[in-house]
């Protein structure tokens, strides 16, 4: 267990600058998007309070409105880090096989087995994903402050924090309002990472043949999942479809972990 935590700490340490960079990036992009949007809106009604026509009160422009109208900016701020994290699912393994002094040799020779190594890398990915998610919430608070400072007083309107969040389609996806939807989104993400890991380990064990095996393995798993989902188009009760999906999901998770651990302990080549 102590090896697992040490390895996890090391994975975090090795990614810390990139993680911080991604956080800074999305905050800056979102701040700029919000500032531009408020500026544009205010311009439409005259830049300064004194220049607007008396008697015509513009619609108040709440924080939720701002978020709803800056979705493209948010997409930019969030899409790049998400892509980077997806890429890191690959990089977290392949970086150890590359370079002049491939670290994989050392990692695979740690006394006490390689299972902690696998779980440390898996946990690290999720730690990074949830760190970014948590950071988005912090960013929202910062943006709210920015909104309060930038928006002309006569434009400010009240809004609740949750309304602001769900004015954005991306947030509906990243942080679904319903817990079951949250579980589905992140459960699928979890399975996706497990399958990618298994695919990577297949490639690391059997090289070119491994790529073919990995492709077949991924295709099989995706097909099974889609078939399970399609049962709701047959005359199944919704609860039955859920049961089938959960079963397939559970089997795939277990299968991916079993395959990965078998490969990393017995078949992998440094």
């Amino acid at each position, binding site marked *: 267990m102590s*090896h697992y935590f*040490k390895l996890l700490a*090391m994975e975090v340490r*090795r990614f810390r600058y990139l993680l911080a960079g991604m956080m800074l990036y999305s905050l800056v992009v979102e701040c700029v998007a919000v500032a531009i949007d408020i500026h544009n809106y205010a311009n439409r009604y005259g830049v300064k309070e004194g220049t607007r026509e008396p008697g015509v009160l513009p619609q108040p422009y709440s924080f939720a409105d701002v978020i709803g109208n800056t979705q493209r900016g948010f997409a930019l701020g969030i899409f790049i880090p998400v892509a980077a994290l997806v890429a890191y699912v690959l990089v977290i393994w392949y970086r150890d096989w590359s*370079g*002049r*002094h*491939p*670290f*994989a*040799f*050392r990692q*695979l*020779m*740690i*006394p*006490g087995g390689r299972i902690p190594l696998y779980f440390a890398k898996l946990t690290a990915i999720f730690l990074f994903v949830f760190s970014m998610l948590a950071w988005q919430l912090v960013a929202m608070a910062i943006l709210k402050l920015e909104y309060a400072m930038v928006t002309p007083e006569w434009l400010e309107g009240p809004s609740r924090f949750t309304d602001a969040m769900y004015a954005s389609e991306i947030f509906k996806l990243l942080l679904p309002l319903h817990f079951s939807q949250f579980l589905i989104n992140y459960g699928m993400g979890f399975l996706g990472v497990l399958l990618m890991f298994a695919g990577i380990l297949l490639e690391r064990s059997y090289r*070119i043949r491994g790529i073919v095996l990995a492709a077949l393995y991924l295709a099989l798993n995706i097909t099974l999942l889609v078939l399970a989902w399609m049962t709701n188009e047959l005359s199944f009760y919704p609860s039955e479809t859920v049961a089938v999906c959960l079963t397939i999901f559970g089997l795939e998770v277990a299968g991916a972990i079993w395959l990965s651990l078998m490969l990393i302990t*017995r*078949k992998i*080549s*440094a």
Partner: protein
Amino acid sequence: MIRIENAHKRYRWRKVLDGVTFSAEKGQITCLVGMNGAGKSTLLKAIMGLTPLSKGTIRIDGVGSKRELYEKISFIPDHAAMPGGFRLEEGLRFMADYYKSWNESRAQELMTFFRLNPRDRLGNLSKGTAAKYALVLGLAADTEFVLMDEPFSGIDVFSREMIGDVFSSRLIEDRGVLVTTHEIDEVEHLLDRAVLLKDGKVARDIDCEQVRDEQGKSVLDVMREVYRA
């Protein structure tokens, strides 16, 4: 004793190892000799569980399991096997963190002997200096066996001399050493045994002093017989 029996390994269509059998004894320096691509490194990696054999068995002191393997044998690949961004002291801390057999005072002694600066980053070192660091990481642990993969290849002459000194020091004494090389010069007079690989098989397995004593031949002479034929 490290005992390898009937080792087979193929990379796609090429048979790299085709029934290799030999042993490396504790307290002896055994050299695996072979041309490039003869499967020397593959054998070392197979002993360390870093690549599976297609067929064959590997036993360490009669035991086949990998438990305690890494506390018992240290492997020195032809690189330092640490992230390039690590400072040398970070690599030492990594080893101390995971290995019960790690001997910190020996590590410091070796760092001094090789004149390595713990604050340097691995990525900035020359090949020769990195090779010395790889030796520090491999020799500082109190292991019974040491495997070294091509410790001299592509390294400047003074680094070679320093690395050669290690073989005659107490760092090696009493341990079993299995070293691979394709150029025998540096180690010829240091060896107890030489195992010559050719075409995936053991072509000769010799006691070096005995061959000199009985046949008046150097290891290089025996290599000529095997590889020129």
